[in-house]
């Protein structure tokens, strides 16, 4: 399984020359299993360069197939969809797996992105086949050679954490999420102890834990209900769950490369006696786990 980051930034994508190292694009990940099953996680602005690279292979010929996993539908996770070229190519097939949000189906949210007030191309003119499947939280499903599992995260609206297993490896994507001890910020999260136990189970023993680290500890004060975490939370989660690598994710847009470097150095220091490694997500970063696609 091969994982590539196309957008690692949170809240909003932003062009500023001092953040090129990690990149300014918002959330988008790409996962490739060894047998060629493709997953895209979220459609932040990073999906534009991902789409451009996909057009160079079977998606440019209308022969591509991918599954789009949706974490949630806040702007920074979906604003790139209208600029994803492979949707325009007849023959390409996409299946969206999402819980929607707050009772609204994902298909309706996606369609709203193409409303004529805001975008010149109506959704009906997208030539690729788009299928929308509702996937509630706490779902387990098989998709070709992969196994998927979801859990609702502590973030305003409906946000899913995903565990993806294939090729004898596992990844957990937990963004955006807040530590629940200070504030439960989503309806229907359930008892905090149960949530923490289930979140730990979602992340148990993964090869890569991609975790929300938007804030430094001093920045989160007063913003506990914004639904984000710190690098300390990510390291603690990695420790509890016995993971192999913790990947700091959802970098704040106002943090320069130097600040993310500091976040990474501090996280590595906190984890210096732990068995796992710590890295910070950056655009173009690629991680191979288990068997990989030829």
């Amino acid at each position, binding site marked *: 399984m091969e994982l590539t980051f196309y957008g690692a930034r949170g809240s909003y994508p932003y062009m500023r*020359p001092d953040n090129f190292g990690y990149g300014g694009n918002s959330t988008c990940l790409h996962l490739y299993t060894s047998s060629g099953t493709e997953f895209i996680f979220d459609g932040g602005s990073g999906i534009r360069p991902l789409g451009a690279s996909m057009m160079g292979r079977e998606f440019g010929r209308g022969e591509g197939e991918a599954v789009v996993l949706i974490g949630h539908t806040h702007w920074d996770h979906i604003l790139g969809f209208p600029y994803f070229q492979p949707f325009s190519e007849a023959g390409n097939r996409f299946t969206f797996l999402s819980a929607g949000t*707050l009772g609204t189906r994902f298909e309706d949210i996606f369609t*709203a992105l193409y409303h004529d007030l805001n*975008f*010149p191309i109506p959704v009906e003119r997208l030539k690729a086949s788009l299928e929308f499947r509702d996937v509630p939280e706490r779902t387990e499903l098989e998709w070709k050679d992969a196994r998927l599992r979801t859990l609702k995260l502590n973030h305003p609206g409906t946000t899913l954490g995903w565990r993806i297993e294939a090729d004898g490896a596992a990844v957990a994507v937990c963004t955006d999420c807040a530590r629940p001890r200070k504030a439960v910020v989503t309806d229907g999260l359930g008892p905090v102890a149960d949530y923490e136990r289930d979140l730990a189970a979602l992340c148990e023993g993964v090869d890569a834990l991609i975790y929300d680290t938007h804030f430094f500890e001093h920045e989160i004060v007063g913003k506990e209900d914004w639904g984000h975490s710190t690098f300390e939370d990510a390291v603690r989660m990695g420790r509890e769950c016995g993971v192999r690598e913790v990947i700091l994710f959802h970098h704040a847009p106002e943090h320069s490369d130097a600040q993310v470097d500091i976040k990474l150095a501090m996280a590595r220091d906190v984890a210096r006696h732990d068995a796992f490694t710590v890295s910070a997500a950056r655009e173009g970063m690629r991680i191979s786990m288990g068997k990989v696609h030829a």
Partner: protein
Amino acid sequence: MRLTIWGAFGSIVSPDRDKWRYGGNTACLEITHGDGRLVVDAGIGLVPFGDTLSRFPLGKGKGVLHLAFSHLHWDHIQGLPFFVPAFIPGNEFHFYGTDRHLLEECVEKLFRSTFSPVNGADKLGARIAYHELAGPADISGLAVRCAPLRHPDGATAFRIEAGGRAIVLAFDHEAGDDSFDRPLRELASGADVLVHDAQYDPADYPAHEGWGHSTWRDAVETALAARVKTLVLFHHDPDRSDAGLDEFGRKASAAAAGHGLEVLVARDRMVLDL
């Protein structure tokens, strides 16, 4: 009079390494004259503009902001949910569009719980008043006139005058239909600065006919016909690199040479003092 370009790009914010000199933020321009200020469009460029305001009245809940919209496509509105002064109680916003009901509907959509943790435009700190802008108006001490542009679902050009100077903003616009081009030439007549859509090279254009954007050549021709002093090529394609934009500047300058027209290529954070 001062023009600051906070976002010079179209379509989608595109923080690519190959164009760090020109930028990658979507449309947002600020025009000031004395105490008067009008911002046009709220693409992602609105965010860095907002970040400069923390020590000023808009950063303290004591500010008034006038913001006009050329149209409501994503790249002209998408910075609004991340504009810090919107969250500060006490600020007063005046939004101008050709249809104030559609504008209000659009702003409400931006802050809807589906898309934003703000959970509704009524939860914002700033109070927003919506205004219809069609004919001549005085906004914050600036004289504003409009003309319709040729773009899918329409767009509006603005002529903004103060202190004997004039700036004209013409995007998003596809040149080539005289029923739009003639009123635009009249609006831009004798302006000091014309900021014009120049998304394409003439060689790219045939594949993008009907998409609602012009070429750098169209921009030069309009500027020459309207006898403007300075042309600013604007609304860059997100896939255009620094090298590509340098080339647009060279070609457009060559086409304008000998006609007394200065050509500039818009960059994020570019400032022009008139």
